[in-house]
């Protein structure tokens, strides 16, 4: 019997139903992830109406119009081009910081899941460390070690590494109680194999949620540091430094300079939070 005897739904409608089902299952993942992908694509591929790095001294503090959609700032930079171009440095930096925090979390959190006095002590020390105003500590470290963009990475790791360590350790501790771990040990698996082959794959779910939350936090940290002028090398655009430039003009009414990059930050964080919620729901559901 050939396939054609059945009334097959067309490929297009199949794709459509599948997509609808998926969106229904977790709208957060699709909408959040889609918006994020769109932002990344736009910042790298979108055609920019003006060069984001060269100011036009004849067009200073122009309000948004057909010519300059988002207006221009006090130096004559086109705000729209810069908001788009800033995503090129801000978003990859946030993702890299998250990746580094995840690696730190796995490397320290997994070994710490072996219960011992030593690991308890380490967690206490981590408590003390985390109870500190970490944003100021990271500003301190970044500004003491030099005004370098890679130091922002360290700041993100300082703030988010401990969260990953705590999360991964906690999750690994509860996984350790499972029968399959007991079975693995009984069959003679070495501790390292138990940790990397049997425990690590099972912490992936919580790590995914935490990763998108961390990226959201990293976007805020980067914006905050850039707002303070740390890790910025003008005229390279970043959302934080653009908000800073606009802050000086906002009490005289030129809102567009600070608001548009702020909206970009907001959309980035909102879509990452949506993604995190979506994954969370999926994890709980399965």
């Amino acid at each position: 019997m050939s396939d054609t005897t059945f009334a097959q739904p067309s490929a297009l409608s199949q794709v459509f139903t599948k997509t609808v089902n998926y969106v229904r299952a977790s709208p957060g993942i699709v909408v959040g992830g889609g918006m994020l992908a769109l932002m990344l694509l736009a910042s790298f591929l979108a055609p920019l109406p003006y060069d984001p790095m060269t100011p036009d001294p004849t067009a200073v503090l122009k309000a948004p119009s057909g010519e300059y959609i988002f207006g221009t700032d006090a130096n004559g930079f086109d705000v729209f081009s810069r908001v788009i171009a800033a995503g090129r440095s801000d978003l990859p930096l946030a993702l890299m910081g998250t990746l580094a925090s995840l690696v730190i979390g796995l490397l320290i959190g997994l070994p710490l899941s072996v219960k011992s006095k030593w690991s308890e002590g380490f967690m206490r020390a981590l408590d003390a460390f985390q109870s500190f105003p970490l944003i100021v500590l990271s500003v301190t470290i970044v500004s003491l070690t030099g005004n370098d963009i890679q130091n922002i990475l360290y700041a993100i790791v300082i703030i988010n590494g401990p969260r990953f360590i705590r999360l991964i350790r906690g999750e690994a501790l509860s996984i350790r109680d499972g029968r399959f771990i007991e079975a693995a040990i009984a069959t003679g698996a070495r501790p390292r194999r138990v940790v990397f082959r049997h425990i690590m794959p099972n912490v992936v779910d919580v790590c995914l949620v935490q990763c998108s939350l961390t990226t959201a936090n990293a976007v805020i940290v980067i914006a905050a540091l850039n707002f303070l002028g740390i890790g910025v090398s003008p005229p390279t655009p970043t959302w934080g430094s653009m908000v800073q430039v606009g802050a000086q003009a906002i009490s005289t009414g030129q809102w567009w300079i600070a608001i548009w990059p702020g909206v970009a930050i907001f959309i980035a964080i909102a879509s990452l939070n949506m993604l995190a919620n979506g994954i969370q729901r999926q994890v709980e559901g399965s």
Partner: protein
Amino acid sequence: MTTAEAAQVAVKEKRRRPVLRYVLKRVAIVPISLFILGSVSFFLVFLIPGDPAITILGDFATKEQIAHVNSQLGLDKPLMERYFSFWANLLQGDLGTSFFTNEPILHELGKFLPNTIELVFFALIFAITLGMTIGVIGAYFARRMPDRLMSGITSVLQSVPDFFLALVGIYVFFFLLGWAPAPIGRLPITSGSADGTPFLIFNSLFTGNWDRLGEAVSHAALPVMSLGLVYASYFAKTARGSMGTALTTPQVEFARACGLRERTVVYYAFAASRTTVITYIAILFGSLLGGAAIVERVFNWRGMGQWALDGVLKVDVPIIQGFVVTAGLLTLTLFLLLDLVVLFLDPRVSYE
């Protein structure tokens, strides 16, 4: 007495007054934490790459200036000697003097810390009131329309950086509507410097200086709101979670079965989830001590965070050390209090 009997006595001794043992144990950690804290602030200076004096003064410093900074940092003395004299000074409450203003750090702290505490205090009250309301409404109407609305509000608040909210606030309430005063500090320029009066709002309230109270409150409104709105999302999330759990517990069902009023039932559920919220208050208070820095800067609030940030950006080492020690000390005290309060409110916490 045999060994077994002695062991039994020891066990009994251990069982007696577990609360006291817990409290003593908890207090005993404090000196250790203090030691780590002090050492961290001392060794922070070593993070400065190359010659700290040149980093501080810039590339065009004269030899005398470098020598002066070096002697002030004590960099011309051996490491251990510096470490011990740092501790000797610290234990006497001497945090050194700022490189740039030449004022004792302790004096500057006395000026700036009260401003921050006042700001954080009101911001937290705002955040708790708003956040708890959002969270409790969400938990009560779980998975229904109000819950969706509240969680929507929460995620919006969660996604705004506080300094951005501050700027939007300035634009709308100062520039467009003219309701709020210019973001230039804690009092209007015409009232002169407010540095002489710490705790401006409390001070005006208790001395009955109503004019000044009005001015101070109107200047505080925007910074308090921009911090409070952002931090409300944390309380909303916590309250939604813990109230959500508490409302499904058997005691709530029992309370309903007894025919208690709905208000009383919600109150009982609230009491069951309060420890989580209190923990969050302490954590956020600690992080706001420095975390309010950027908002303080936007409003020129002259608080501790702003002071520390300026110090950090100018590589003013004594200010950095002073801030690290003070913020750490406050956080440690706060967490000690927190643990004791939680112990008092919820005796189920393990004493180990």
